[in-house]
């Protein structure tokens, strides 16, 4: 994981590390780690999902890479190796915690953060690396307000979302989602191959042609989310390979009704539509 590597560098020592400095110079606004590193150092990630382990596939399925931290985002990690911090005490019913990175990029020696996750009762130190400070929080999904205390002064960072609370002071806002949004820009469009060299003079298929056994369905198309009874499995993201293929329910040929299914992508979300149609026999 990209951010894992970044943390190692933080521990090794701040100002003298030229490679880290050169990266942070490239993007002064945030801790920035190159994308190639993130794939190389990924260990035990992505988590094995049941659908994938059963597949007889050879190719590697697409992995949604979390978007790089940018000025407008609340940066987040998606690494199963991080464990809950033992000193993290959350009030209320237990909810699944999501690792989230909070960063401060405006200098200072000692930076702490306090927030509405524990009703502003405690302050936590951020780890320093050069001019940047960061802390990993594990929080249940929701919206939080937080503030930085930089060398004793209450501050907020304009790089991340912020708002005024009712009392006139400004706090940063953190919205922790429980999913990694698909980075739509990173999906490259499939380049359609050109049409093969042939003419439109082929004759219409005859009964002989229909009597032939049709070619086998490519095995990856069996990974459709259609027909999955277990709702947990069905809510997993579908494999990109099954998108925009029309499926028909087995056993429909003898009935007066047929069920058609199609999975397609809408922005970063996937929708499976099942249509029941009457068939004239």
């Amino acid at each position: 994981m990209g951010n894992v590597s970044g943390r190692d560098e933080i521990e090794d020592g701040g100002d003298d590390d030229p490679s880290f400095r050169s990266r942070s110079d490239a993007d002064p606004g945030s801790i920035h780690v190159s994308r190639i590193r993130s794939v190389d150092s990924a260990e035990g990630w992505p988590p094995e999902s049941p659908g994938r382990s059963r597949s007889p596939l050879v190719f590697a399925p697409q992995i949604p890479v979390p978007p790089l931290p940018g000025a407008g985002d609340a940066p987040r990690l998606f690494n199963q190796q991080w464990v809950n911090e033992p000193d993290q005490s959350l009030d209320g019913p237990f909810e699944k915690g999501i690792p989230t990175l909070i960063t401060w990029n405006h200098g200072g020696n000692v930076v702490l953060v306090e927030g509405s996750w524990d009703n502003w009762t405690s302050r936590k130190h951020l780890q320093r690396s050069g001019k940047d400070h960061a802390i990993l929080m594990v929080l249940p999904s929701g919206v939080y307000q937080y503030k930085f205390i930089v060398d004793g002064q209450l501050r907020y960072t304009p790089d991340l979302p912020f708002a005024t609370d009712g009392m006139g002071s400004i706090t940063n806002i953190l919205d922790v989602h429980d999913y990694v949004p698909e980075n739509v820009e990173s999906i490259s469009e499939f380049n359609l191959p050109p049409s093969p060299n042939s003419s439109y003079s082929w004759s219409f298929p005859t009964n002989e042609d229909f009597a032939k056994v049709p070619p086998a369905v490519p095995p990856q198309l069996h990974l459709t989310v259609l027909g999955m009874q277990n709702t947990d499995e069905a809510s997993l993201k579908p494999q990109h390979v099954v998108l925009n293929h029309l499926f028909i329910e087995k056993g429909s040929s003898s009935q007066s009704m047929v069920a058609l299914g199609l999975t397609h992508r809408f922005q970063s979300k996937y929708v499976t539509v099942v249509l029941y149609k009457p068939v004239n026999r």
Partner: protein
Amino acid sequence: MPDVLLQETTLRVPEADIGRFRDHIFELLSTRTAYELLPDSGKVIALDSNLPVKQAFHILYEQGIPVAPLLDTYKGEFVGVLSPLDFILILKALSNHGSNLAEEELESHTISAWKEAKQHLSRQIVMHQRQSQRQLIHAEPYDSLKDVALKILQNQVATVPIISSRGESFPHLLYLASLSEIMKCICRHFRHSSVSLPILQQAICTIPVGTWIQRIGESNGKHLAMLRPNESLSSALALLVQAQVSSIPIIDDHDCLLDAYSRSDITSLAKDNAYARIHLDDMRIYQALQLRQESNSHYGFYKGQRCQMCLHSDSLQKVMEQLANPGVRRLFVVEAGSNRVEGIISLSDVFRFFFSLA
């Protein structure tokens, strides 16, 4: 004991608090869009409007869904939704004609033929205040959550299909949105937020929301309709339609809550073609509830419980959190211990309070 309750209700929430709360909700829902409600990977079931009503009935029952959008394949457009109310009206119409609910009748009628007949019926029977529309009530994915919620409330429906049709060559059906998911979004916002809204901690009986029996909470003037288990199914269906409610509490002789019969339970009549064999006047509510128990449908259940309950002293935030659970559309306010019904608070009641609608 009644005096204590009266005292609680006189502690009304200050108008300023209500106003600040409404402003906050309004701002929150205006900045979020319907796209956020879509799950990462979701499934929607649609029906061709030329399907016979009988098959549609069975599909909804087998898939465990209460509502399905209708696609007119000739026009290439979505033209409406098939909801439990349609089935209730069909069964009532067929039983009114005196015939047994012959399967052939349901087999030959297509959904679109039924929708046309419904238009005629609605001119004869005064059913709803809204005009019967041939237009599909839908929302686009980038409509604000405020618009989606208002659409649901103003058209008195339970769900609104999210369809992307602007700039597309054909409409993409994306999701069926209901007030439940919007409530989940609101609760998520307040759960860990430190925005100070004291109204969230007020007892629900002090807030003018929901339908109550007298003297307990702020009554909205509507009578709380309840039925006994030995009453006929046809009286339950008639009440569901005329009172314009989606669920009726079933109570025993001491007004204690036993169960609830909802509009969506009508699809359980498809089990073993029960609708074809029964007379609505003869079937008792408890028999219909038994049928529902035997069916596989998990719709409307949350954590195995059909009726979600709360106390009149529960805070507004607690009530909202309960209503945000999937499958929960209403809470029955009961007396602690005895389960005596004191009121009902539904999702639409709370949203009407948010938007200060009647």
